[in-house]
């Protein structure tokens, strides 16, 4: 095992190298670009034996990955923001055809106003695309998830494309010490892909991405949904087996931090979790019963796991780096549905922050916990809070 001081993007590239994809289809976009730069270096120096395709757009990046996956080879691509939306029509194409493609997405704002910094408007846009979506907290998790993602996506019970999300700049460009596992360990954990049964092959030719009219279409979609829901078990399974081999675990769909006796719980995704961990410690030391949920997967959505952790909470806050215009933060909507389905009745609050790369500070997290504590104590409190805003609007 090597310890390297690298950025989140470098960590993704290291993870991809270890996962040994057959083909990389690459198109640059800030803040993802370093991933495809590093991978081109690895292909050049021979440390990654993959075909590197310089595609002419994100649309073709995913389309080419689909071609690769359709013959049972392992494909990787990466994108961000406008690029993700440019390839949008191909996402349900790949998931409907049950292609286990892995894609890194550097979460970034959407134009307009034009902005290259991090928020989660892009991937939220594609929540319904039939892809598994995970949000990582740091560079180490980014590297590890490149390995886990192939393991999960290629499981015959799952066969679903996988999007690994990193907060633009805050994660993609921040340097951290990362453990890079030995290739032999990864090879043993993630054997070469063999998918002839589901994909095109000379032995058993097939037609893929077929047409199914109103007589059959619905059954295909229901099966896709049920198997995506069932992938929650495989996600937990892979996280456990990964921990056995590599000694690091991420607690599957979500991680509950100090939630056992918590009266108020904040739900975060991605890098905000790291900041929130510090505030949890600070508030616990002051005697406040605060808890934190690091929501790792948004699809499949961990309804049951969430309900289990939230069952005694008096107030729940959801951090959203996105807005569904005309409504609220998208994660908030999803969490509310899970709460309602589970028969829970906590007070719920939405903290919208970090749009277009606006800082989410420790002070902002304190403000969130203060609002939740006050709400839990019975005070009336706004449902939606916009954090760290310059001026009244």
């Amino acid at each position, binding site marked *: 095992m090597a310890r390297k001081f690298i950025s989140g993007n470098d960590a993704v590239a290291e993870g991809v190298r270890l996962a040994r994809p057959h083909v990389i289809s690459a198109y640059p976009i800030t803040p993802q670009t370093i991933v495809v730069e590093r991978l081109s270096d690895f292909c050049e120096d021979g440390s990654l034996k993959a075909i590197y395709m310089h*595609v002419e757009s994100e649309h073709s990046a995913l389309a080419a990955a689909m071609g690769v996956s359709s013959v049972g080879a392992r494909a990787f691509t990466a994108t961000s923001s406008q690029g993700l939306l440019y390839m949008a029509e191909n996402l349900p194409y790949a998931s409907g055809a049950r292609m286990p493609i892995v894609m890194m997405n550097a979460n970034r704002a959407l134009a307009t106003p034009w902005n290259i910094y991090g928020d989660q408007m892009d991937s939220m846009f594609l929540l319904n695309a039939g892809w598994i979506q995970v949000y990582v907290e740091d560079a180490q998790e980014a590297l590890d998830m490149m390995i886990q993602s192939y393991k999960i996506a290629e499981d015959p019970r799952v066969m679903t494309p996988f999007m690994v999300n990193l907060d633009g700049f805050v994660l993609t460009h921040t340097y951290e010490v990362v453990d890079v596992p030995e290739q032999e360990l990864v090879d043993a954990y993630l054997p070469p892909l063999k998918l002839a049964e589901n994909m095109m092959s000379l032995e058993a030719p*097939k*037609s893929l991405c077929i047409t199914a009219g109103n007589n059959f279409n619905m059954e295909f979609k229901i099966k896709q949904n049920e198997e995506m829901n069932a992938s929650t078990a495989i996600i937990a399974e892979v996280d456990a087996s990964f921990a056995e081999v590599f000694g690091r675990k991420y607690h599957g769909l979500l991680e509950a931090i100090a939630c056992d006796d918590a009266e108020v719980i904040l739900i975060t995704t991605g890098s905000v979790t790291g900041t929130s961990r510090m505030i949890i410690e600070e508030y616990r030391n002051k005697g406040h019963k605060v808890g934190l949920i690091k929501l790792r997967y948004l699809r499949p959505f961990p309804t049951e796991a969430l309900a289990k952790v939230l069952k005694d909470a008096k107030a729940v806050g959801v951090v959203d780096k996105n807005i569904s215009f005309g409504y609220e933060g998208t994660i908030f909507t999803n969490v509310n549905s899970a709460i309602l389905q589970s028969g829970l009745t906590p007070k719920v609050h939405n903290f919208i922050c970090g749009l277009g790369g606006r800082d989410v500070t420790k002070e902002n997290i304190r403000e969130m916990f203060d609002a939740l504590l006050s709400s839990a104590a019975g005070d009336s409190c706004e449902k939606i809070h916009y954090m760290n805003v310059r001026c009244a609007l």
Partner: protein
Amino acid sequence: MMPKITAKNLTNDELFYGHKACGGCGESLAVRLAMKILGERTFASLPAGCMSAVSFIYPNMAFKTNAIITPFASTGAVAAGVAAGLKALGIENTYSVGFAGDGGTADIGLQALSGAIDRGDQIIYFCNDNEAYMNTGIQKSGLTPYGTRTTTSPAGENLPGSVTTKKNMFEIVAAHDIAYAATASVGYLEDYMMKVEKAKSVKGTSYIHILAPCPTGWGTPSEITISLAKEAVDCGLWYLAEYENGEFKLNKDPKAFTPVADYVKKQGRFKHLTETDIEHLETQRDKKWLKMRRDWNK
């Protein structure tokens, strides 16, 4: 010199069979014959269009070989991905081919095709040109000729139908310095089949652009598809040519053209054309041939 492929020595095996294309469909004939020549180790990529619409209807699959429907814009990219995947897996002696229509090639699919040619991907790309978006109900594409009545280029008092000329796909492709490109017509099938055979041994990207009449969209009886496609070449509105080793070559250079009027009058899509319109078509044709004869036949 490769042996000539004729009806006599062409295989009786059908690799594209049982589809739901219209009677007299030129495009399905082009695909069927190409598949016979390419054989069973072919991986076909088809975007949205008539051929994908008629041949992948669950549970009836018309391709006996591997085949995949691609996003509309993505024929070049998916076929390139298939080729890369097969290469990476060490699966040899296969053909990754794309069968796209005129809109799927010259309009929405042009960028992905350009990317594939630029990379020199090992694919054979077929543009099955029936000169409009037929699958969606006969709308004008970038390869619709001047004066064509389509459902989005109506002919009336103010317009003669389509007012643009066919996008010059063959030369656009050649300008990439592609390894091999050819034009063909379902009216000259031996020429077409020879070109498919040739493309099989090309190292790099091949492009074959075949004119394929569509009785439904052209307003023609289904039994004249072949003779009409022949006449398109004989009257000079289409041409048979190749581009290889950086050189253009006209495969057929008629001493005299048959009348354009005879060709257009057989077709519902051109019924409204006036003598002036036809003269305009002839002028365009003569200009094109002057250039081709001057630059390509050395």
